[in-house]
């Protein structure tokens, strides 16, 4: 206890703080874990488009409901498909929807947010109220509502995920631009004869991207869970298709055969963890 106390006292003195290397080490740990994990998942799911141990959609490559073994690493499901191959093949659906949905939300939210933040006025006020309404919804519920309204399918789920996510980017971008537009370098850029839009997009926006990027990684972790939840309820991607959430839903009535639901769930957990770790690492770096 005494040693902790002295440490804290030393850290309290401003001049010593940079010498404390602890936070940097943890940042690297989360960064590398996040990069490694997401790299692995992306590689495996892309590779699965060319090679899987068995044809993922083919029933009867083994007996129904075989426990994990050397021949079937993750076991087989009730029609005798190889779960390992299925989990590999489904990766592209989940990762793809998550990444495209997040990218859409990022671009739309950042664009609208920086414009309304820069120009202000009535449009800004209306847009802000609108995002507040979207954000005061339980996200998963709004997602379920929207998907059940427009129907499932890849593109619809991507769009819905983008709708759920963009208010976050919008508000963050707006706040960043608001805080920067009265800074001296913005004034200087205007004095140099730049147009207002070019000041916004060439000078203010690039300086505001860091928090947006770290937010997008955290957001992606949450989107991955929403996407699989929609699949689990059976309103996301067509039921029975290669998607981790719907694989879990399909195995739900046979949880005594634990491997049917276990492995797709681990995949979702790892994907969400990968993004979350990345977001954490970016956020730490930002603070420094």
């Amino acid at each position, binding site marked *: 206890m005494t040693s902790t106390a002295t440490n*804290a006292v030393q850290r309290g003195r401003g001049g010593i703080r940079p010498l404390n290397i602890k936070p940097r080490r943890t940042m690297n740990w989360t960064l590398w874990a996040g990069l490694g994990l997401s790299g692995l998942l992306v590689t495996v799911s892309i590779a699965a488009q060319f090679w899987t141990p068995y044809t993922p959609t083919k029933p009867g490559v083994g007996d129904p409901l075989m426990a994990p073994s050397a021949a079937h690493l993750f076991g087989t499901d009730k029609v005798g498909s190889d779960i390992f191959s299925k989990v590999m093949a489904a990766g592209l659906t989940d990762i793809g929807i998550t990444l495209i949905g997040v990218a859409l939300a990022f671009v739309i939210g950042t664009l609208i947010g920086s414009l309304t933040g820069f120009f202000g006025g009535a449009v800004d006020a209306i847009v802000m109220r609108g995002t507040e309404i979207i954000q005061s919804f*339980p996200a998963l519920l709004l997602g379920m509502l929207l998907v059940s309204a427009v129907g499932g399918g890849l593109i619809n789920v991507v769009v819905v995920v983008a709708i759920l996510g963009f208010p976050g980017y919008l508000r963050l971008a707006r706040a960043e631009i608001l805080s920067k537009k009265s800074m001296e370098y913005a004034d200087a850029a205007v004095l140099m004869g730049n147009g207002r839009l070019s000041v916004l997009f060439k000078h203010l926006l690039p300086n505001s991207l860091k928090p947006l990027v770290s937010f997008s990684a955290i957001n992606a972790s949450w989107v991955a*869970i929403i996407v699989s939840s929609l699949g689990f309820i059976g309103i996301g991607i067509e039921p029975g298709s290669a998607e981790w959430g719907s694989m879990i839903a399909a195995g739900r009535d046979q949880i005594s055969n634990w491997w049917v639901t276990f492995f797709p*769930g681990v995949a979702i*957990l790892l994907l*969400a963890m990968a993004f979350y*770790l990345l977001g*954490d690492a970016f956020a730490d770096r930002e603070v420094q």
Partner: protein
Amino acid sequence: MIWGVVTLTFFVSRVVAPDPTGLLVPPQATDAIKQAVRHSLGLSDPLPVQYFRFLGSLLHGDLGTSFATGMPVNADLLTRLPATLELGLVSLLWGVLFGVIFGVIAALRRGKIVDHILRIMIVGGMAMPQFWLGLTLIGIFFLNLGWLPGPIGRLPIGVNTPTPITHFYLIDSLLTGDFTTFSAAVSQLILPSLTLGLGIFAPIARVARTAMVDALDSDYVRTARAVGLSPTRIALSWSLKNAMLPIITMTANAVAFAFSGAVLVEGVFAWPGIGQYALNAIQQSDFPGLQGFVLYVAIMYVLTYLAADILYAYIDPRIKKS
């Protein structure tokens, strides 16, 4: 705000959702019958008319009649609300309690093993798909070990429901001295509240850890140490008190999260609360049921943030003054 949420739900569900008539009449029904059903549901009127009728009855506390159950939505939700509140409060209780305790311990032992274990638990908790966690826990503790009952709601068949006083089974069974029911209700609650609670625990522990680390690094803690106060006293009565504000904010968020998480968790555990009701409503195009749920959740949000504001003022006198 509530108005905005309700309006958005109304339009999203009415404009694009499928017509529920098909679910209510047999497939061989004639068009005339379908028309009559549609008319009796008020769906044949133009949308703005439907919207204002909906708002009007809302002001009288009337949420309409559920297409799925044929009962007034308000009555449906009120009978189901205690189940959700009981599950939510128990999850919140352990989530916040353990979140704060672990967060504080990790902050005090920063960089040590405990701290690393907690950080891994936080990342895992934040990234956990709850529906899967629920299924996995059922698989382990019910099917394999047989320690806990299966996902069959609040009480197993054959156990008497306690006399409704507060409608919380835990409290009612204790008040009436019915310990069989009490222990049955507790075992039914363990798995769902663990599932829901992990999603509360992780963000709370994270915030508690960060806030405590900041507080422990602050000048007033250095002064307190210099004065010679005991480390425990500094941690609990000085640092923790200052770390409480972010913890309360996060708790309010967690409550909001618990209500949306309840939809899936209640679905997995067949928990007869409003979340499960909403899940059914979505699957059966039951707009009034869904709108009612959304309204209830919106009201809960407002109450939660109000409670958080009151707590802020209680903990931090500076807020009360301004």
